[in-house]
């Protein structure tokens, strides 16, 4: 307890560093930060606020990630949308569903899923370009996806009408459990699938 107080005083003097804390305390601080965050935390942000090199933070995060799995804790650590975030252990799914009494899964219509699929691989893209692929207007679908925070605007095309371009948001990555867009399988895989199944 006394130790912790000393560290708190040091924090005020902006002299936080690895030697001063010791690795054990850095771990503890990281856990605290992850615990209070409601969005993925970037390693750079942790590094800045603790004044500990980012490399060390990454190393500790990887250790924590491993540790939570090995110890079968109620939560796991996942690398998502360019940061780290605490998630419940997926094995607790049924119990937690009963606990929260609602299914918080995001429901998306088939039209919304198709629109997201096109934007994910063709971004930045305009509504007209999406409509050309889907063969129907997508205005209301795009608005719904914007409302859900899964898309964001990405500038305009310099041509009459100045159509808006869209790209997927960080929330999209979180929804799919991806760290970045590069984690999406290459579009080629779906094309090959198409050739082999022949449908």
């Amino acid at each position: 307890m006394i130790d912790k107080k000393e560290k708190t005083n040091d924090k005020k003097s902006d002299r936080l560093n690895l030697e001063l804390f010791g690795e054990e305390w850095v771990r503890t601080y990281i856990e605290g930060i992850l615990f209070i965050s409601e969005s993925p935390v970037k390693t750079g942000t942790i590094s800045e606020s603790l004044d500990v090199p980012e490399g060390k933070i990454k190393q500790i995060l990887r250790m924590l990630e491993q540790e939570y799995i090995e110890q079968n804790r109620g939560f796991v650590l996942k690398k998502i949308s360019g940061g780290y975030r605490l998630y419940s252990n997926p094995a607790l799914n049924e119990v937690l569903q009963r606990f929260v009494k609602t299914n918080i899964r995001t429901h998306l219509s088939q039209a919304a899923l198709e629109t997201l699929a096109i934007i994910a691989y063709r971004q930045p893209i305009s509504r007209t370009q999406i409509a050309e692929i889907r063969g129907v207007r997508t205005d209301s679908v795009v608005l719904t996806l914007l409302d859900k925070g899964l898309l964001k605007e990405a500038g305009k095309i310099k041509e009459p009408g100045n159509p808006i371009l869209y790209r997927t948001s960080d929330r999209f990555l979180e929804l799919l459990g991806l760290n970045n867009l590069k984690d999406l399988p290459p579009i080629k895989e779906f094309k090959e699938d198409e050739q082999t199944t022949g449908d």
Partner: protein
Amino acid sequence: MNTAEVQDKDYTLEYENVFSGPIFLLVELVQKKKIDIYDISLSYIINGFKEFIKEKSGVLLDTISSFIYFSSILLEIKSRSLFPSKKEDEGEEGELDINILKRREDEYRIYKKVSNYISSKIIEESLFYIREAPMEKDFLDTFPDFTKKIELEELWMTACKMLARNEFELDLGDVYNHRSTVNIFNEMGRIKDMLQSREDITFKEISSVYEKVMDRIISFLSILELYKNEEIEIIQFESFGNIVIKTR
């Protein structure tokens, strides 16, 4: 295939002195540029078919869907011809051809598979729960206050802009009830005349002489036509902003 079906499929279009035959043939001729899409009134063709199904009971679904399919191709060709189209979207003849439709269909099938993949990832991910509540009050100060710089006046302006948008909401069904008083060629001439005495002019100025929405639409189409003919330049700095028209 019975006789009735053959007759249904052979629904013959009669179009003034321009064309007589099945609709797929018309599509082919338009694609091969044997017939100019500008000479064809699509509303005339569609109304004719509507009359046909009204008069004749038991028209096969096949006939109706094939008519819808081919008339939608014509509709697309015509709407495309109104806009200056990009080279990559054009077929060899500079028109939308069946190959493009086929390519789009293939592309769409691939994205449908991607959508299945996305759906399965979402389901997989829904096994995890996260803390979605906002940050505890005590920690809020550590974040910048995004509403700090917003003045009451700004909020008021935003609300006004939002409410003013209602003015743009038109009853499209009503637009077609009023016949236009101008035609596209006269309107193109009028715009060119206006541009002779001055360097540039806005769409608002050009269309301000018209009361009817249909006349304003004609005026707008005339501008597009002049742009396509490379006679004018169009500049628009922001969405819904003034459209400025200049001579090339």
